[in-house]
């Protein structure tokens, strides 16, 4: 059977998808360093996109995914699913309250640097786009197999969130550029 074609979420997706708040992944019980992720979604003119939606999927603080196909012997965190969703607001900003994930295995005995898997939807996007958030202060980025597969530093840099402090709390800033000179790296996999 053939795959059902993708279509845009359209301008009114919030009606079906973001009525409940879904951008807080970590509760008090969750293990790991509390972080906030925030950023803009920009279009090809550098205009912020107020009707985009971002979803994230990540491992827990030990580096284990809450999914039966992750058979690693690391502990699960019962208080952490690892998934979240945020619409962009009128300013084009999305945000998540989560924890920093641990490392997970990569191909050929490699180790992937901590990262968050991202899907981007918007009015005007007929197909969602896949990208990843890496953390600017992680030494493992230098040997990460996926980051290393992006040949130019400028392109690689679009996947790396810079760490800032806001009111004493760590915030990783990750802007998504759908198009243009600094277009975010989007993956096909």
């Amino acid at each position, binding site marked *: *059977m*053939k*795959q*059902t*074609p*993708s*279509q*845009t*979420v*359209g*301008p*009114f*997706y*919030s*009606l*079906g*998808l973001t*009525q409940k708040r879904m951008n807080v992944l970590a509760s008090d019980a969750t293990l790991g360093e509390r972080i906030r992720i925030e950023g803009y979604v920009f*279009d*090809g*003119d550098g*205009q912020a996109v107020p*009707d985009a939606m971002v979803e994230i*999927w990540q*491992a827990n603080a030990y580096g284990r*995914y*809450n999914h039966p*196909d*992750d*058979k690693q012997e690391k502990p699960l965190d019962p208080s952490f699913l*690892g*998934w979240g969703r945020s619409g962009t607001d009128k300013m084009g900003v999305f945000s998540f309250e989560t924890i920093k994930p641990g*490392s997970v*295995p*990569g*191909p*050929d*005995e490699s*180790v*992937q640097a901590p*990262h968050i*898997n991202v*899907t981007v939807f918007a*009015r*005007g*996007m*007929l*197909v*969602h786009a*896949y990208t*990843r958030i890496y953390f600017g202060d992680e030494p493992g980025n230098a040997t990460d197999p*996926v980051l290393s*597969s992006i040949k130019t530093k400028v392109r690689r840099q679009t996947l790396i969130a810079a760490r800032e402090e806001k009111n004493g709390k760590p915030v990783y800033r990750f802007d998504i550029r*759908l*198009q243009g000179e600094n*277009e975010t*790296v989007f*993956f*096909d*996999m």
Partner: protein
Amino acid sequence: MKIQGYNPRDWKSHPPYHFEGYASSMKRAPLKRLAKMKQTLSEITGPLFGPEAVQPRDTDLTRNAGTDGEAMGERVIIVGRVLDEDERPVPNTFIEIWQANAAGRYHHEVDQHRAPLDPNFIGAGRCMSNEKGEYRFLTVKPGPYPWLNHPNAWRPSHIHLSLFGPSFVTRLVTQFFFPGDPLIPMDPILNSVPSKSGRQRLIASYAHDVTEPEWALGYRFDIVLRGRQQTPFESDGR
């Protein structure tokens, strides 16, 4: 660790990011070549939602507005199966839908179409597919509505769907249409699908076996998500 990956996206079925007929795609389409990535543990896992994600009334859009009233419009029953490319059912997967009301207006502040809102209709529903991959909603048929894409542009009646499937890479957002709608051949969003057979697969079929006498018409819309590759490959790490 063995990684059993999923089939790649079938770009003969999916639209391109950049489609001339759809004005909003012009500045929002990624234009650089997508970076090829071998699937890892991050891609073959994904969120699995439990039954608590859904309330019983979430499948009845004619009655889930939080009023005691019933939505206006032509009542329709939407059924279908969620399958993978090998025709295996995708059970227990979270499905969300949203749509305009019978007059063609969304319960959304951005929608300024001069058509009435229905106080008894929100236009959002959700459910889990069952063990056989089946789902079912009761709703009203959405009306067509105008948009500003080109002169005298109207969207055909359609319902939006969002599905997860078993992994990060099986995610799908789509929409389906109703058979016989004269606006279908003119719709740039549907026409962005490159193949005729792909476009046809987004049109639900009338299902008389689902139609309930003196109650509601039935339509069937099956959904096919990316299938799983047969041969696992080695991926070791710590």
